[in-house]
């Protein structure tokens, strides 16, 4: 069985790969064109406003970044937790983590008001900013990930993979906490503020990242790589089920604690019942996530269907959290009803525009292109047995 050292190979060229690459390249080009248009015309052509300052691009970027750290999990299982059967999938796991992070960061950067000033963010770092810390965490993760990937695919260096894998695993826990704390540290925004954001984001990353990994592994086997062993896949699926359950638990805990605070009741009513689209997305996402548990955990396991439901539910939940949390009116004068021509006291509306969707999808396309490129030029997918 898988206990033998797996033999890795590069993905051979074929028609299917060509087609997928062409499609992804098209999406990437559309994303870049959208970013360019926004840079020329300003964010006025997007749906983002001074109320909903982060929109669909950020939902996509956060999904990719969160999934990136979770995608590394399979490699961590092999190197840190000694799951031998995951060894064959470890290099792909590391590559996917890197690719997803690059895709997500690209979206974030291209959505900046002044993406041309990226260098400024590298040169001037404010030590109290969690954003600045995250820049370091992302760069460090990329560095660690590249080294880790190298150690995993170079047979002679395999023995060094375990310590680096452990470092990468610990690093990603900090990184995902940092990503969650971008929101958790916002004292001005009660939907986000609080320590809960860090564990919630870690749970999200384990669930979404694991799901993305299963889907991408299947995409690769459709493109000619070896099929993951069914028993390994079922085991990963069950683990994914546990992570999804933790995500659901964290989400519920977040809202239950808010519901207990009279101060936050109006906000919770908006997010869970009265807010129109956002409660719909919140409960819809939750149903999708809960629905993912069935195919993941039942006796007749179908990990792929569970993974697809997890990704869908995670995306929808993230949209409800991020956009819904910004749509909630701020409490300018506690105890008073406020109105202004700037929209004080009323929920903010947000309608994503085409360029935003294109930019977000472009990031996904970039991540997948990088995965395919890596699989074509590096020997990191297990050889298909004939």
């Amino acid at each position, binding site marked *: 069985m898988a206990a033998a050292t797996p033999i890795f190979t590069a993905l051979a060229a074929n028609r299917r790969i060509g087609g997928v690459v062409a499609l992804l390249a098209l999406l990437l080009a559309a994303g870049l064109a959208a970013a360019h248009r926004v*840079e020329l*015309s*300003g*964010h*006025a052509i997007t749906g*983002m*406003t*001074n*109320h909903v*300052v*982060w929109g669909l691009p950020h939902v996509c970027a956060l999904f990719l970044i969160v999934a990136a750290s979770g995608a590394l999990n399979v490699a961590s299982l092999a190197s840190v937790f000694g799951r031998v059967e995951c060894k064959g999938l470890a290099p792909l796991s590391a590559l996917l983590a890197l690719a997803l992070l690059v895709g997500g960061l690209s979206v974030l950067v291209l959505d*900046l*008001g*002044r*993406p041309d*000033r*990226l260098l*400024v*963010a590298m040169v*001037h*770092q*404010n030590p*109290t*900013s*969690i*954003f*600045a810390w995250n*820049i370091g965490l992302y760069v460090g993760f990329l560095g660690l990930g590249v080294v880790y990937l190298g150690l995993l695919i170079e047979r002679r260096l395999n023995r060094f993979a375990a310590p680096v894998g452990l470092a990468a695993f610990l690093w990603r826990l900090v990184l995902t906490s940092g990503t969650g704390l*971008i929101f958790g*540290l*916002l*004292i*001005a*925004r009660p939907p986000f503020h609080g320590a809960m954001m860090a564990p919630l984001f870690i749970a999200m990353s384990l669930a979404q990242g694991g799901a993305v990994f299963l889907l991408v592994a299947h995409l690769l086997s459709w493109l000619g790589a070896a099929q993951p062993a069914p028993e390994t896949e079922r085991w990963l699926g069950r683990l994914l089920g546990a992570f999804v359950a933790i995500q659901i638990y964290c989400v519920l805990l977040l809202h239950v604690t808010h519901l207990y605070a009279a101060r936050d009741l109006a906000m919770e009513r908006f997010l869970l019942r009265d807010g129109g689209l956002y409660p719909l997305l919140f409960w819809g996402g939750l149903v999708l996530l809960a629905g993912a548990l069935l195919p993941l955990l039942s006796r007749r396991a179908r990990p792929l269907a569970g993974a697809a439901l997890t990704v869908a539910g995670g995306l929808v939940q993230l949209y409800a959290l991020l956009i819904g949390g*910004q749509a909630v009116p*701020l*409490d*300018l*004068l*506690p*105890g*008073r*009803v*406020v*109105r*202004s*021509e*700037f*929209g*004080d006291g009323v929920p*903010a*509306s947000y309608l994503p525009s085409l360029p935003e969707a294109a930019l977000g999808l472009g990031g996904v396309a970039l991540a997948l292109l990088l995965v395919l490129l890596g699989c074509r030029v590096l020997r990191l997918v297990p050889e298909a047995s004939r």
Partner: protein
Amino acid sequence: MTPRRTFLVAALTGAGMATLAPGLLLIPAQAAAGADPARRFAILIDVTRCSADCTACVTACQAEQGWGPQGLGAADPHWVRKVEATDPTTGSTLSLPVLCQHCDNPPCVDVCPTGASFVRPDGIVLVDRHRCIGCRFCQMACPVKARSFVAAPQDDQRPHMPRGQGTVEACTLCVHRLDAGRQPACVEACGRDGGGAMLFGDLTDPDGPLVRALAARAASSLRADLGLGGRIRYAGL
């Protein structure tokens, strides 16, 4: 610049010249004093004298700083806005201008990744647009939504107030006026065209009109519960 180079350039260029960077000289006679770290400017707003139909402060700010509606709805900038606040029990309504509170502990400065949001030595919270990358994290962090993102190309800016697409902006407390010894435009306009509800002054001047007025009436900052120490104080809320 290395200390050695600093020393060498200084030695070579002789006394009376300060060196700042390679190829850069300063003539000290022209150096002026900057923002005074001993001062803390603040505004006291008497809400009882602020009427709902008056927008003198907003109009004055727009004229002074060169911002205004560009037909972008919620993406339009708002450095200062008039807010109606109704007490749900009594139905009584107040009107008040909301602007950057120039907090003592500004969350926008804490979160800014590049240090573009900063506190001047005299406590005024500003955006250094040369450093702003347009990430909008400060907008997420501000509890009164005092900051706006410039979402469209700009031209015909005021010479003292450069504004550009892709950066974040907010009330500057009219630093250009303060540095010239004048009052903020909104305060001046409120006194001239409005209800005279705004009083500008220095919190560190115990005998000044602002401190005396603050001693005479209860006044608080917006969202005082957050402990940010806003220096726009509202009396009569």
